[in-house]
């Protein structure tokens, strides 16, 4: 369909002429978006991590055996060696990989960028944690909602009256968690000051929030 009432070429060109993008920012944006497809491969990353951990255990066990065969090395030193945090020794900066060896039910919900800072969302049953996605991973907050799920199990689960929950573009992550045999759909959404967690059909009742650093404001 052709329309004859167009803008002048000069104005149209100015409209399209948005300031040039910083290639670093563009790459960060795309990397964060690609992390949305990273979740299905998490088991592979976990497997890779476990193989690294297993190799570390073999080395440590060999060290213990060697130390026990040596009269000069006290047993306590070998015990201390086994206490070295293997996840911290991982060369992969991914927070998900770093913590996947600690909790069987943990996993990454993906990453996002806010004001040029990358964050990674790690979830395990009843807890959502937010980390600065860097080496080493640094936790900036967590939301514990396990009790809220248990309470929810005993109340009316119908959609909230008078509140239309439209998550079409707001959510940073949408996932399902379980408590006492029931599943609950949850949404982590960006808010004015940070991120907040909601049951998917209760968009006005936050389960908890984490403030994001106001860098660059």
């Amino acid at each position, binding site marked *: 369909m052709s*329309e004859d009432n167009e803008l*002048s070429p000069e104005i149209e060109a100015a*409209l399209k002429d948005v300031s040039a*993008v910083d290639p670093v920012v563009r790459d960060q944006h795309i990397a964060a*978006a690609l992390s949305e497809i990273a979740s*299905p491969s998490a088991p592979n990353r976990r497997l890779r991590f476990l193989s690294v951990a297993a190799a570390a255990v073999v080395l440590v066990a060999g060290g213990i055996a060697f130390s026990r065969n040596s009269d000069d090395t006290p047993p306590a030193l070998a015990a201390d060696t086994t206490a070295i945090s293997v996840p911290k020794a991982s060369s992969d900066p991914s927070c998900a990989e770093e913590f996947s060896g600690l909790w069987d039910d943990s996993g990454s919900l993906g990453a996002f960028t806010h*004001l040029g800072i990358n964050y990674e969302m790690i979830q395990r049953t009843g807890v959502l944690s937010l980390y600065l996605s860097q080496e080493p991973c640094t936790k900036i907050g967590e939301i514990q909602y396990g009790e809220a799920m248990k309470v929810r199990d005993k109340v009316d689960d119908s959609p909230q009256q008078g509140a239309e929950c439209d998550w*079409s573009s707001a959510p*940073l992550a949408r996932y399902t968690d379980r408590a006492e045999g029931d599943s609950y759909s949850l949404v982590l959404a*960006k808010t004015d000051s940070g991120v907040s967690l909601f049951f998917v059909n209760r968009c006005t009742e936050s389960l908890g929030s984490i403030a994001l650093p106001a860098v660059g404001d």
Partner: protein
Amino acid sequence: MTTDALLVKRAQRGDRNAVDELLRENYDIVRAVCHRIVINSSDAEDATQIALMAIVRALPSFDGRAKFSTWVYRIATNAALDELRRIRRRDIPNDDAKFENISVSDGTNAIDAQMDVSAALAQVPEEFRVALVLRHIADLEYEEIAVILDVPVGTVRSRLSRGRAQLTALLGNQGDATQRQNNDTGGQ
């Protein structure tokens, strides 16, 4: 099947390189849509990020009935409008206020021209601004804009007409704008 269609298919099957390529192909236009709707630069960057993530999340559900680019613009527009709603809830002045008293330059300098058009766009009502962006940045047909905004084609035509007139007037070509507005209203 076109190259783009093949790329989309590969992306839908989880080919990370294909998704990366699709995002890079559409990055500039997604960012432009977000910047021109949201206006405030840092908020527009956030909207761009959210739009890209939404595109990746929604890729498996793209059914090919619309053009892929139209589908992308719809997501970018929704992300930008959602960011505007967040800005309003924030209840602090955004860049719109800063632009209210900016004088219009002669437009000979590229940066001046860009500032002018941002300042002028900030003063165009949101519903006209969104229509202008979809038409003149995303190069969408009226019918496609109508689908994205879920309004009749006549409403799109009206919003564009009034938006163009306001934008042109704000940028100093009031004579042209008046003429176009007269043409538009006379044709309906």
